[in-house]
């Protein structure tokens, strides 16, 4: 991931980052290095309404707009995409449905499989075949394509995905189909796999290109509507953490599926880097789920994501999601254990304290424990119903033979243990020790749980950004423009020479630069970076390493081997230097660095935080019920030191400091909490 400080020659511009969440639409305006933020309720029926209203309220008329969009995600998860057809090699039409043949839940007799986005009657096989060397062993005939066109016309397909076997080694047949379909009377939205994801593994590739086709129309229409009022400069956040022009996002919307969460990680990483903490674990706790991501000095990507049961192979920030959030429901199961989630009260009816639901949630437990203040929630927009929660908590407590307070603390502990498990899996399971990282919580609920969670995991420090509630909008605004390209080559031994690799990369760069120039982006500011996906011969897990630079003199095979062995040792704990390796994919990243807000560090002032003291309240911790001071976050100034027990309150977020935790506000406005 890019993290280039703004260079001197970048022109000062006005950039507006827009993040649309389930509850709020956040707008971050970045101008002359200064950041201002605006927050208003989302309009889920038509997100653009909230966006345009919000932009109007900020008073900004002309700017570069960058948008973290959930439109593609929602179309996918709610099944509201186009009527999509899939064209495959004959005999392999059902690969999309069979998938990897495994079931998601071992012991659930009632389990469902996510329905194939291109249903059976819309999957068409064509006689053609390319083998594993890229040689065509069965030609695709124009007659076959004509027959296909007839069937497509009859089928009423609005979008067509094409994914032939080994098309990443020979694109001819897919391109023939694309060119022919474009000449149809009413051409559908067309997406070919050799363009969207030219990589091996036919199911994952087909799934990716089908998702792309499925959400394509919805996304183009939506972006068309926004481009009118916001102008042609509109960019969209991609799941990889870089932004891209709206036009390219319309062509490859599958790259924007995790747009919003990606913005959060970019914002968190940026805030932590600025404060001097490059190794972080992000904790984005929302209503129904929590996203965690490990950034060891850089934001990490994965090409093996699964969204709603659909594998997606384009690069995404490596985010692990666990079904535990503020709205997760607590109950006692048949064996007498207290369980929390994955069922969620969602936005409707919402936690019991919102006044509608009858089921206790994590948010209700926080309210009961005094960690959320009923009259200060969302700046007082909603008053929380504590009485309703008390009754429910009493009956839950009775079920487990405990006091209500213990039950509420228990809900907290259980939900923390789920988040702990998620963090263990992204750190320890991948060879990283969480005790060497800083936890960066954001989202509405993250800062409420962060210190206790850090304590459990032995994480020594929690960095709460100045505005944890709008971090995604900030991340979206500062994201560089990034375009990713890849190609499976499968080279080893004698085939692996620099001439061949350079030639392949050169071809990819040509295509990339042409595409970016076509978007009106200047090529001279562009950075290109080359990577290789390498594995032991015949194995099925690849590791991404840097492509060795041109001026190294030693044997290419050896350099690649050495970096691979190093990466393997880190990730898997061992490396056999005698085993041969092979290059699976070439990856190219094109990067146009964007301005970052040049926040002037504040001068460290007095430690006494009493200027921000707004009262006190009884808060329950593991140690018992303690009268704790309340601080207004916006009034804390650099150098102010707060010590737990305490609550730090802001409009959309509360930070809980348990006894024994405390720390200063740093020169960038972050709260740096450590065990004292």
């Amino acid at each position, binding site marked *: 991931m890019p993290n280039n400080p703004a260079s001197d020659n970048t022109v000062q511009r006005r950039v507006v980052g827009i993040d649309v969440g389930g509850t709020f639409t956040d707008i971050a305006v970045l101008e002359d290095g200064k950041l201002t933020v605006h927050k208003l309720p989302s309009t889920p029926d038509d997100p653009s309404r909230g966006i345009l209203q919000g932009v109007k309220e900020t008073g900004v008329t002309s700017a570069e707009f960058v948008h973290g969009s959930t439109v593609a995600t929602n179309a996918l998860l709610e099944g509201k995409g186009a009527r999509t057809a899939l064209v495959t090699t004959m*005999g*392999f*039409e*059902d*690969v999309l*449905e*069979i998938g*990897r*043949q*495994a*079931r998601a*839940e071992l*012991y*659930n*007799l*009632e389990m*469902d*499989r996510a329905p194939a986005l291109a249903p*059976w009657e819309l999957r068409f096989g064509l006689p053609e075949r390319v*083998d*594993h060397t890229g040689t065509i062993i069965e030609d695709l005939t124009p007659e076959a394509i004509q027959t296909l066109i007839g069937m497509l016309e009859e089928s009423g397909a609005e979008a067509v995905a094409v994914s032939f*076997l*080994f098309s990443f080694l020979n694109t001819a047949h897919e391109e023939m189909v694309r060119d022919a379909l474009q000449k149809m009377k009413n051409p559908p939205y067309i997406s070919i796999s050799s363009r969207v994801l030219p990589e*091996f*593994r*036919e*199911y*994952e590739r087909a799934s990716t290109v089908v998702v792309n086709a499925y959400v394509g129309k919805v996304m183009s229409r939506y972006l068309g509507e926004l481009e009118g009022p916001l102008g042609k400069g509109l960019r969209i956040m991609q799941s990889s953490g870089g932004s891209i022009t709206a036009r390219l996002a319309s062509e490859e919307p599958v790259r924007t599926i995790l747009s919003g969460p990606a913005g959060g990680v970019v914002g968190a990483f940026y805030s932590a880097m600025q404060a001097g903490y490059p190794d972080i674990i992000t904790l984005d706790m929302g209503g129904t789920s929590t996203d965690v991501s490990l950034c060891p000095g850089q934001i990490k990507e994965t090409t093996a994501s699964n969204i709603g049961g659909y594998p997606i192979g384009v690069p995404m920030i490596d985010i692990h999601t666990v079904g535990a959030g503020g709205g997760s429901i607590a109950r*006692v*199961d*048949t*064996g*007498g*254990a*207290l*369980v929390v989630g994955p069922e969620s009260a969602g936005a409707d009816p919402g936690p019991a304290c919102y006044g509608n639901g009858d089921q206790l949630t994590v948010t209700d437990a926080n309210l009961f424990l005094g960690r959320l203040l009923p009259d200060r929630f969302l700046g007082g927009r909603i008053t929380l119903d504590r009485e309703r929660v008390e009754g429910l908590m009493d009956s839950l407590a009775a079920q*487990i033979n*405990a006091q209500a307070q*213990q039950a509420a*603390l*228990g809900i907290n*502990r*259980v939900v923390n*243990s*789920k988040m702990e*498990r998620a963090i*263990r*899996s992204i750190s*320890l*399971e991948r060879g990283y020790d969480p005790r060497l990282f800083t936890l960066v919580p954001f989202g509405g609920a993250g800062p409420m749980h962060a210190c206790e969670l850090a304590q459990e995991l032995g994480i020594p420090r929690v960095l709460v950004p100045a505005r944890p509630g709008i971090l995604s909008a900030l991340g979206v605004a500062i994201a560089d423009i990034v375009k990713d390209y890849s190609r499976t080559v*499968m080279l080893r031994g004698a085939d692996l020479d620099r001439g061949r690799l350079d030639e392949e990369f050169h071809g990819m760069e040509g295509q990339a630069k042409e595409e970016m120039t076509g978007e009106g982006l200047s090529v001279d500011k562009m950075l290109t970076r080359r990577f290789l996906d390498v594995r*032991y011969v*015949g*194995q*099925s*897990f690849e590791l991404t390493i840097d492509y060795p630079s041109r001026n190294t003199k030693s044997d290419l095979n050896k350099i690649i081997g050495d970096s691979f062995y190093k990466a393997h040792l880190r990730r*898997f*704990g*061992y490396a*056999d230097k005698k085993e041969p390796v092979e290059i699976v994919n070439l990856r190219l990243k094109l990067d146009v660095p964007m301005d970052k807000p040049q926040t002037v560090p504040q001068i460290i002032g007095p430690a006494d935080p009493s200027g921000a003291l707004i009262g006190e309240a009884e808060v329950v911790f593991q140690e018992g019920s303690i009268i704790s001071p309340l601080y207004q976050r916006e009034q804390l100034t650099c150098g102010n030191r707060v010590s737990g027990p305490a609550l730090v309150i802001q409009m959309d977020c509360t930070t809980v400091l348990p006894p024994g935790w405390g720390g200063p506000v740093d020169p960038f406005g972050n709260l740096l909490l450590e065990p004292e």
Partner: protein
Amino acid sequence: MPVDPISLEVFKNMFESVAEEMGVALQRTAYSPNIKERRDFSCAIFDPQGNMVAQAAHQPVHLGAMPASVEAALQEFPNALNAGDIVILNDPYLGGTHLPDITMVAPVYANHNGTKTLAGFVANRGHHADVGGMTPGSLPLSTELYQEGTIIPPIKLARRGRMNNEIIQLICRNSRTPDERKGDLAAQTAAIRVGELRMREVTERYGMSDTLEHMAALLDYTERVTRRAISKIPDGRYEVLDYMDDDGLTQELVPIAVAITVTGDEMSIDFTGTSPQRPGCINAPVSVTTSACLYVIRCLLDENAPANQGCLRPLHINAPRGSLVNPEPQRGVAAGNVETSQRITDVLFAALAQALPNVIPAASQGTMNNMIIGGHDPVRNKPFVYYETIAGGMGARPDKDGISGIHTHMTNTMNTPVEAMEFAFPIRLKRYAIRRGSGGDGKYKGGDGVIRDVEFLAPARVTLMSERRKLPPPGYHGGHHGETGENVMLKGGYEEIRLAGKELVDVEAGDVISVRTPGAGGWGAPEDEQSS
């Protein structure tokens, strides 16, 4: 910390995450596609008595069989398992299932009041693609265990942290693919070490007493959940008789009978009436039979309940000695784990369907469709062994259709991508499709099987080990049965030759083997579909 409903959930999450972390370590460091790509392995955590406390959600067929491995290690080395030791085994009659499944067990010692105390065990099991024996893949149509490969009784692979690499050498020398074996065994060892480390961290964090108390409490917890589930089943005796197609040597049907008796919150499962052990290799060691029982019970519990041995406490299993489901030593067992286990599951569900008609689905494909290919790759100039299991139909449910082309019940291994296979082996896939219409009709339809057509680009020896080629998966409550599976060879790509369910066949370049897997049973009479 005393045990309470809250700490119970916290410890459950922790033990499961240790088992999962072992699994990740094993999968990531393993060498063979079978473990890496198909995930044919399991990892579990045990208390000091050898009771399984948590298993990561890996392969159900290993569920009841993992505890048998720990028990065998404990019996072989009473009071002689030291910190740093690893016991390795695959003997189906001493803690194993079938020979390709190699298990490692290690004690975990941690500091308790200044002395090293046994905190429990960690174990993992991986399916190795070849451990020798009469045919490539070590799942032969055998008549005795000795033909199936290298037998490893419980022996120490490591003593106090020092590996005995000679054992590895011996195993590798007996395999057709020694490099793979070496890599996979190293991965299993690495996963054991990760498990030990994490378990020690748990005891350091919470103290030995609390850790042990919570292990016991989790077993009690699962027992309570299981008793609760059983008590919801109407009391009564539910009997079922079904058949395996044959044992691969003769053509006779092989009966499997079960009588489930539910009394309050206890259940007895009696296999009396099941066929005596067979000369062919379909005998299921009692650990496999136990796995099937555990799996079926686990399916009746809330998804949140840990898969541990507490499940077994309310069960009384009677698997007569010398029968197909509890054979005497040295009988062939290659297919017991992969095929007979599926039929045992079928009869258990069929019996429960009488008691719980609105809960239990109709029969699924009832086989794993094992295909094992071995030969010499002329292009890459090296020997190769490839093993896969092929999905089929899932039985229709009381409220919805079954799923097509999916692995059911005792297995959940993944397929190998077509492109990955063709990059690696002298094989070309001609077709991989859903076998439309093979699922049984009904108010709700059974899932369809699949068709997998494999063309060989070089001569090879192929073992097929499959079931439901004679008797189809039944439908329930008026639902129609699914189609039986078919194995066909297309000689030279055209000339159709029918193959048996269990068959060893030598193929030439240009030949195609087409495996057509069974569809599943439907649920409810088809005419009710309109009214639903």
